[in-house]
């Protein structure tokens, strides 16, 4: 059995509070994230799910302060341990990236340089972070460390293969090398942004096991960003569901999948094809994700929601606590004025 989250009182490793991110374009400013709040505790795997355009990638970029030039965190805060991430000066920020928070992507070639051998890249990555106290190691030691980490992530013959270049490895192996590179600096938090989405199921299962082992053996916390609810169900302890730049629901993985509260979460889960559903039509969500330039004033899901009333059109829902979970939906907010008819919510999954 996996470790599971530690008991409640542990202070969070990462705390995101009321984060708002705006993209400035020539004509106007678009709010890409609004009032996003969640915690990640040490050793916890938190899933962030949602469809394209929901703000998942903006969130991961904001956490690393890697937003594009026209992106700006306009309010809220991100605390990583004692650091106030949004206020870090360039030098401290460089130290935080990689050392405190590592990142892995869908395409390993975004982090691996094709013109250098794996050895050079893994050694340089360590040298760049003297603050991690790696400066006192000799080059030989740094290579040893690199070989060790490559072995841990399952690269066969790492001592030989470390002199190869990225293109000499298969896709799955490159994914592992990228993970190895992130692990070298022993970050307390790893952000995996669609890190297994391009892989075959068998490789994906291997990488997921690797991530779970990291958490178990090193206590690495992971933010697992994915559109794949199946994978999220298998690896995450807690899940944040995003829609139109908002966190719309958060809860532990078991209750969120068993009893989704937000109509959007319910609809997402009902749309997944599985063998059990053979023969039935899959549920689909009518309409599409609203464009950031044209968001409805109240609930952003209102035009696609089977339970919408007039109040949902006008009133932006608050993030309210329900049964130890949080949901951004007027239906669950006693102060919203939403009128409950006899059976308000159709779906238990």
């Amino acid at each position, binding site marked *: *059995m*996996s470790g599971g989250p530690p008991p409640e009182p542990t202070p969070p490793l990462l705390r995101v509070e009321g984060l708002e991110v705006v993209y400035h374009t020539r004509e106007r400013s678009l709010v890409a994230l609004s009032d996003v709040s969640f915690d990640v505790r040490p050793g916890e795997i938190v899933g962030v799910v949602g*469809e*394209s355009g929901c703000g998942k990638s903006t969130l991961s970029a904001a956490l690393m302060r890697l937003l594009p030039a026209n992106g700006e965190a306009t309010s809220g805060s991100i605390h990583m341990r004692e650091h106030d991430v949004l206020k870090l000066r360039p030098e401290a920020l460089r130290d935080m990236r990689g050392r405190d928070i590592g990142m892995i992507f869908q395409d390993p070639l975004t982090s691996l340089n094709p013109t250098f051998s794996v050895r050079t890249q893994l050694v340089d990555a360590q040298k760049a972070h003297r603050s991690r106290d790696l400066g006192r190691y000799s080059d030989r030691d740094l290579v040893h460390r690199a070989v060790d980490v490559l072995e841990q992530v399952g690269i066969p013959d790492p001592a030989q293969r470390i002199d190869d270049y990225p293109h000499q490895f*298969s896709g*799955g*192996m490159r994914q592992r090398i990228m993970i190895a590179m992130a692990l070298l600096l022993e970050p307390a938090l790893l952000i995996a942004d669609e890190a297994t989405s391009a892989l*075959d*199921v*068998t*490789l*994906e*299962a*291997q990488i*997921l*096991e690797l991530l779970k082992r990291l958490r178990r053996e090193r206590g690495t916390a992971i933010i697992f960003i994915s*559109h*794949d*609810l*199946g*994978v999220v*169900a*298998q690896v995450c302890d807690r899940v944040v569901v995003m829609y139109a730049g908002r966190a719309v629901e958060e809860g532990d*993985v*078991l209750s969120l*999948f*068993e009893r989704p509260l937000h109509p959007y979460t319910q*609809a*997402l*889960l009902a*749309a*997944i*094809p*599985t*063998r059990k*559903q*053979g023969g039935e*039509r*899959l*549920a*689909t*969500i009518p309409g*599409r994700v609203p464009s950031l330039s044209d968001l409805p004033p109240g609930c952003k899901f209102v035009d696609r929601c089977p339970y919408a009333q007039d109040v949902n059109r006008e009133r932006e829902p608050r993030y309210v606590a329900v049964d130890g979970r949080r949901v951004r939906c007027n239906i669950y907010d006693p102060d919203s004025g939403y009128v409950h008819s006899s059976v308000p919510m159709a779906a238990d999954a």
Partner: protein
Amino acid sequence: MSNPPLVALHDLHTHFDGVRAVDGVDLRIAKGQILGLVGESGSGKTTLGRTVVRLVPSTSGRVEFDGQDVTHLRGAQLRRLRRRMQMIFQDPHSSLSPRLRVSYLLTEPYRINKIPREDHIGVHELLETVELSPELANKYPHELSGGQARRVSIARALALQPEFLIADEPTAGLDVSAAASVLNLMRDLARRFGLTYLIITHNLNIVGYIADLVAVMYLGRLAEIGPADGVFDRPAHPYTRALLEAVSEPDPRNRGVDRRLLLPGEIPSPRNPPPGCRFHTRCRYAQPLSREVVPELEEIDPGHFVACHFWREVRADAREIRETDVAVRR
């Protein structure tokens, strides 16, 4: 499988540049059936689909369509065949020319195949068939969402009123809801027009949802093929079992009891496939026999075939594990 098959492949081989992408495949799809073809990247499943519709030439073996040997058709005969079998390509944005409007793309198959006007289906009707608004006729592909583009490629394939469709990863890259509606559409169309499908995908959830038959491909050969229920509930090839165990189901209650058969390593290069059973380099059941003798497909249940020397052991283990799981969960 009592109906005569609409599509039958006999010992089909497709080799190119030294790659044995398809290397001896036999299968039959009855009219109206949906066959799901699964396997990892590099298994040869896309090449198999392309060989069937004659987009790549086979090296040897035979493709039969509706009882006719179509392996070597040319010219007008090939064009007539193409009206009856169509392929929906994996990435609609690369298979739909960006300079052409939807209306042109939808009528292009008629021009290519020199179809007389009276046999054309109108653009609006085609769009309605795939549940798209007629207003999209004047759009360019880049103005469409992923789900809309996918529907346009389905409509384009339907323009010639084919009987058989090959869909390569029909939902790849789509969001959950868009993927669900494409799958719904494909099922509706199958019923409405009596279509037969070959669906190529690496996603076993989709196959489990939609397919009547499942074929599992590994390095150019079939490892297992049979009715979906049989293959999912009683898989007999270690590779099929490993694939099924690797599927991430959207149910967190299943954690912890799975992943026992986590498949080690990666699929070897089809340029140089292992001798004997191609799966032996990753197989925990492999014995010296596996390294020497290529296992042939063997019928182990009605219509359920497996190519493994040790399928009895595989099934016995599967039964034991299922029983332990039940005990553990209690």
